[in-house]
């Protein structure tokens, strides 16, 4: 009986990664290694103003001084920072005036990934910024958004066209000295998305960025900056994939969100970086710093993440609840199978009065996957009547995986209400057999059970992406019975 289960487990955990192809396109790649010169090189390539170069250099010096964190629940692999190339761009790319100028090979790549870049073909109501290795190749629906005064462009473009906004907010939520990977990102960030929603504007469509790492031995260090001015609303989604490679590739992104008074930002991620093979070779190290600040009263920031890829995922999308009555939410599904590791969760810093936060974390572990929830709820002295609700659930599939929960609570205000619930469950043979007995095969049975388990989080995603995420969960977790 154990043997049969193992077979099924084997079969499903060896499921191929669908997005592992490589695009053959002529690239301009910076020499490997990191030094002041590298930073000058990147900055010059991007024809950046002096202030940005200076800021990058500060990031670099913070990086040199920073030490590796030591509290995570996995052995931090030695990252050879000198073995990485910090800039890679398709040769023809300097700047695209319209989608017609983009290399057809690149368009084909994104089509293959299900991300059509021509505006006619695109999913109704979703504007996309596509980032290939270090540069943004296309941003759709720009004109429509412009009518509303919304700026949605690559960050390089924003540096040129709206330097005052970028200079004001870049690093204002995640400083260049925040942590070693944020410092590295500040020094070498290549591209990413920039969003500005003016006062009182409700963004009429979902904004989306799609990140693709293609070139060997490169890292991807994108930087995303979203500013929602007073009374505005935006929903933003990021997706990511990478080819299969034997060696590990580093992805160290930084995302900063700023919500002013009465503004709302909803940020969703469907992360499907290459997780490595069955033996744990290759795969992406996904070391990302994501943080939002509710600057004004009644502001709201909501993070939703579906994490199915990467060899190691290490990130804690956080919210600083500065404005009174502001609220922060974190909804997460993290899947680990094979030898994948995820150490993820959130930080909610309650500073203003009557601030609220809600954390729903669903971990799913299969194969030899290790899944940790790590979260911090912090209530400051001024944060009267702060409320937090945390629910962390773990689902285990098989008997070789692990689930861990590390909730930290620090309250300096006696009026705060903090609730924490946690459960651990296993997909039972009984559940599988029950579904089998109704004519549903094991693969579909697990997909049903897992999607049911993650429903509360999936429901937070925009419609089209919820469907995608459901499929992704089914594909990455098929079977794995224990």
């Amino acid at each position, binding site marked *: *009986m154990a043997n049969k289960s193992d077979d099924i487990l084997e079969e499903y955990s060896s499921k191929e990664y669908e997005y592992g192809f490589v695009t053959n396109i002529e690239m301009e790649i910076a020499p490997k290694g990191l030094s002041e010169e590298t930073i000058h090189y990147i900055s010059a390539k991007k024809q950046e103003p002096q202030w940005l170069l200076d800021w990058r250099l500060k990031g670099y010096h913070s990086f040199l001084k920073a030490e590796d964190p030591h509290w995570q629940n996995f052995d931090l692999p030695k990252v050879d920072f000198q073995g990485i190339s910090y800039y890679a761009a398709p040769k023809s790319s300097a700047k695209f005036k319209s989608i017609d100028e983009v290399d057809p090979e690149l368009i084909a790549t994104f089509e293959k990934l299900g991300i059509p870049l021509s505006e006619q073909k695109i999913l109704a109501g979703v504007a996309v910024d596509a980032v290939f290795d270090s540069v943004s190749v296309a941003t759709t629906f720009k004109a429509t958004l412009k009518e509303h005064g919304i700026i949605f462009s690559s960050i390089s473009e924003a540096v040129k066209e709206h330097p005052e906004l970028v200079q004001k907010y870049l690093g204002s939520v995640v400083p260049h000295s925040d942590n070693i990977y944020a410092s590295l990102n500040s020094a070498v960030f290549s591209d990413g998305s920039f969003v500005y929603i003016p006062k009182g504007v409700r963004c009429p469509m979902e904004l989306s960025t799609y990140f693709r790492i293609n070139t060997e031995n490169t890292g991807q260090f994108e930087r995303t900056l979203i500013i929602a001015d007073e009374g505005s609303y935006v929903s933003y989604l990021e997706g990511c994939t990478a080819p299969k490679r034997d060696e590990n590739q580093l992805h160290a992104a930084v995302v900063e969100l700023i919500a002013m008074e009465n503004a709302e930002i909803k940020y969703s991620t469907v992360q499907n970086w290459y997780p490595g093979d069955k033996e744990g070779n290759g795969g992406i190290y996904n070391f990302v710093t994501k943080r939002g600040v509710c600057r004004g009263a009644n502001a709201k920031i909501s993070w939703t993440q579906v994490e199915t890829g990467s060899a190691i995922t290490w990130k804690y999308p956080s919210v600083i609840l500065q404005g009174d009555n502001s609220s922060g939410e974190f909804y997460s599904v993290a899947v680990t199978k094979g030898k994948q590791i995820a150490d993820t969760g959130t930080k909610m810093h309650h500073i203003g009065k009557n601030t609220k936060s809600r954390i729903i974390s669903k971990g799913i572990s299969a194969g030899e996957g290790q899944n940790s929830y790590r979260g911090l709820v912090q209530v400051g002295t001024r944060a009267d009547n702060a409320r937090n609700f945390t629910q962390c659930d773990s689902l285990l599939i098989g008997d070789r995986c692990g689930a861990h929960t590390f909730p930290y609570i620090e309250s300096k205000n006696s009026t705060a209400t903090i609730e924490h619930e946690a459960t651990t469950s296993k997909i039972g043979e009984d559940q599988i*057999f029950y579904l*089998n*007995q*109704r*004519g*549903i*095969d094991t693969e579909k049975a697990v997909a049903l059970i897992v999607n049911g388990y993650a429903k509360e989080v999936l429901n937070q995603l925009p419609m089209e992406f919820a469907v995608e995420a459901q499929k992704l969960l089914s594909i990455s977790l098929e079977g794995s019975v224990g």
Partner: protein
Amino acid sequence: MLLNIKNLQAKVEDKQILKGVNLQVNAGEVHAIMGPNGSGKSSLASVLAGRENFEVTGGKVLFDDKDLLEFSPEDRAREGLFLAFQYPVEIPGVSNINFLRTALNEIRAYHNQPTLESKEFLRLTRENQKLVEFDAKLTNRSLNEGFSGGEKKRNEIFQLAMLNPKLSILDETDSGLDIDALRIVANGVNKLRSDKNAFIVITHYQRLLDYIVPDFVHVLYDGRIVKSGTRELALELEEKGYDWIKEPVTSASI
């Protein structure tokens, strides 16, 4: 013949549970299987449905002239074998209706039938809800989650109605039911009875058989069917208990 069980033997881990069961069931018939606790009644149901931890060590089972034991559990279901569980499991977050639609369409796909349209599926759902007196509210809840014992059993009968199997095995469906729930469940089954399908009703007590009247009654004891008869046998068992059945077997085995 719909089901033909020949000398079926099975074990769990190292324990021999079925020691040569013979049983023939034709379409249109209702068979009751009775017997004391631990005699192998539920094991027989599990073996027929293909539960993984039971190992068949001998014998043959023909279902519609096909070798049932060669099929995976899901294919047995698709071939038209339905097991109403004694302890239906809860599956949080999976709505009853979504589960049923998946099940129904999987079975249809197996028979090369197209996916049922939403409208048609809803019509079928409403019709069957009424037929087996199943609360519409429960249809949209998570599968069995937070259902009472009676609601779970009624959900089994509702599923049975929806999937319309050739052979239904009710595994102690009456256990834990009060008399009203028992009547509702039995009524449902009676309405679903036809000359095209058959039922095997596993029960400990004759009470259920007042409502679902069987054509044949079998007594399973120590992994074998030791006595078969008509309805009267159930009444006799009710009156005398199981001890008089046990004796001849025990003496025969000495």
